[in-house]
């Protein structure tokens, strides 16, 4: 009996350290691997992964934690990209332009937040899609056809710096999500996700919590757009407003696990790596494969890879328990 108790205690303490240790290792890998390998396509790959982590995690804050499935995420991404790029090209120091992009996205979010939050479920989803589309069409009508970096900017282009910015943002977004979950506000937000009416009945100020989640979500999405604008040498200014960015955020979060912290991280890695692989091997067909893969994941593992992982863990825990009982 004593022996078993001891093993259990050491197991618990081991488990408690496993997760933070794992995270630190992951971060260290993220910092040093690209530097070690130092190939253009690796820097690009890691950059894309970090960009998509921010994209997915910021959507996750609103959809996973507050339960509001928005299809207008591209609007924030687009505004962030637009504001950052415009200010930066006009001479504003990048750091200021970058933050402004995020802030602009939040301002827009707050403007449309109150009216659209009146809608529920499917209506909210298509309403946000509609808003994002209005923005996209207006942008594509009024903005120049292409936006290209100036000669000097291209000459001093530093991919490494851009990567570490993306990495920093990915960490910050996940950190913000984590803080939100640990804060006293978190119960309120989760309550809203589970059952809005019940939450309202228990005195939770539903709108305020939704707006809080929305402001964080839009801020980080805007910053992600800024990172994109910083990285792209030339692109169509209306491209960041494309609903494809929203769908990528959905894909990533859902594949990884909606409403979990690790979800968007795992999902982004999976999504970017698989997509790059498929694009290389099956040029014409890769989107089709991806779509089918995605459908399969939604049907079989609605909780995403995180749920799959949890299920595997449960099976192994059950096996262990059985072994312990047998050895008795």
């Amino acid at each position, binding site marked *: 009996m004593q022996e078993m108790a001891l093993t259990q205690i050491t197991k618990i303490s081991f488990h408690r350290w496993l997760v933070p240790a794992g995270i630190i290792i992951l971060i260290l890998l993220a910092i040093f691997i690209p530097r070690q390998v130092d190939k253009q396509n690796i820097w690009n790959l890691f950059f894309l992964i970090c960009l998509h982590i921010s994209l997915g995690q910021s959507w996750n804050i609103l959809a996973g934690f507050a*339960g509001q*499935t928005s*299809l207008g995420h591209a609007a924030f991404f687009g505004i962030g990209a637009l504001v950052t790029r415009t200010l930066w090209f006009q001479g504003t120091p990048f750091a200021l332009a970058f933050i402004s992009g995020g802030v602009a996205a939040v301002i827009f979010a707050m403007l449309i937040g109150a*009216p*659209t939050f*009146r*809608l529920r*479920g*499917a*209506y909210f*989803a*298509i*309403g946000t*899609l*509609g*808003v994002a*589309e*209005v923005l996209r*069409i*207006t942008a594509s*009508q009024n903005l120049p056809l292409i936006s290209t970096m100036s000669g000097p900017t291209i000459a001093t282009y530093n991919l490494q710096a851009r990567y570490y910015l993306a990495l920093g943002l990915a960490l910050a977004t996940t950190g913000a999500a984590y803080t939100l979950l640990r804060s006293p506000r978190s119960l309120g937000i989760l309550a809203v996700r589970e059952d809005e009416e019940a939450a309202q009945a228990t005195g939770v100020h539903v709108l305020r919590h939704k707006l809080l989640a929305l402001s964080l979500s839009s801020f980080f999405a805007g910053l992600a757009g800024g990172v994109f604008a910083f990285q792209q040498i030339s692109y169509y200014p209306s491209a960041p407003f494309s*609903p494809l960015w929203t*769908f990528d955020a*959905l*894909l990533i979060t*859902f594949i990884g696990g909606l409403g979990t912290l690790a979800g968007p991280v795992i999902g982004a890695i999976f999504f970017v790596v698989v997509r790059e692989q498929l694009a290389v091997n099956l040029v*014409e*067909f890769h*989107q*089709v494969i*991806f*779509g*089918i893969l*995605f*459908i399969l994941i*939604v*049907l079989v593992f*609605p909780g995403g890879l995180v749920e799959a992982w949890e299920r595997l863990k449960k099976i192994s825990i059950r096996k262990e328990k059985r072994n312990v009982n047998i050895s008795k």
Partner: protein
Amino acid sequence: MSIESFLQTLVFGLFVGGIYGIAAMGLALVFGVMKMLNIAHGELVMLGGYASFWAFSVLGMDPFVSLAIVIPALFIVGLVLDRTVYRHIVRLLGEEKIKNSLLVSFGLTLVLQNLAQWLFTADERAIQVAYAGEGLNLMGVTMPYTRLGSLLIALLVTLGLNYFLHHTYPGKAILATAEDFEAAELAGINIHRVYMMTFALGAALASIAGTFVTVTYGLSPSIGVIWTLKALIVIVLAGTGSILGAFPAGILLGVVEAISGAFIGATYREVIGLVIFLLVLILRPQGLFVGRN
């Protein structure tokens, strides 16, 4: 603006509205009965268009005649999609069902759009019938036969759908399932078969719209998203419980777009529809046509 050009704009708004209406009714059926959001609906419109294009270019069939092939073909596609994908989603409830149907249909959008691109290339296609330029000319207003034909068939289909839903048992079973699926089960209705038929019917309606689109405008694999959005706008205008109301709502959208486009300019014509859509969503979510189908 002269009376003539105003009427001309109005009439063209009617024509395009008819296509909007047919496209939207398909989506309204699926949403009203299965309570799912199929954002791959536009892709079904697109596939219908390619089917009619194929019938025209390979078999030499007139597009309106080719409906006899296109409709059953897309009906079968709808059956297949329901059996393989959507029947797993339809058994969920409420928000979860909506979320999952959004995701799954988004995956389907990727699959269908890129499949079409792979099979048909990204080139724009159009059907040029022999009588393409000809039409009626009433009071100075031109009405091309192609567009007139589209509107007339759209009207006939709507009337046919109305009869089917209200005066035949399979149709009434669909309406009953939309009202209360458990009560429908308790009346002896096999609701899974209803779901399958409804989805297939939605695909068939989409294919009709697709045929008209190919004749009227042109076709490419990427038009799906645009038509899904149009259909969504129309069903919000009609009120999401209304299936047949989607047709007049489609006409309304077409007319409003055409007229405002004439005044504000073509570039903002798309935005008008979206803005009206948002206003209706927020201010009058039950839609503009309150009442039954």
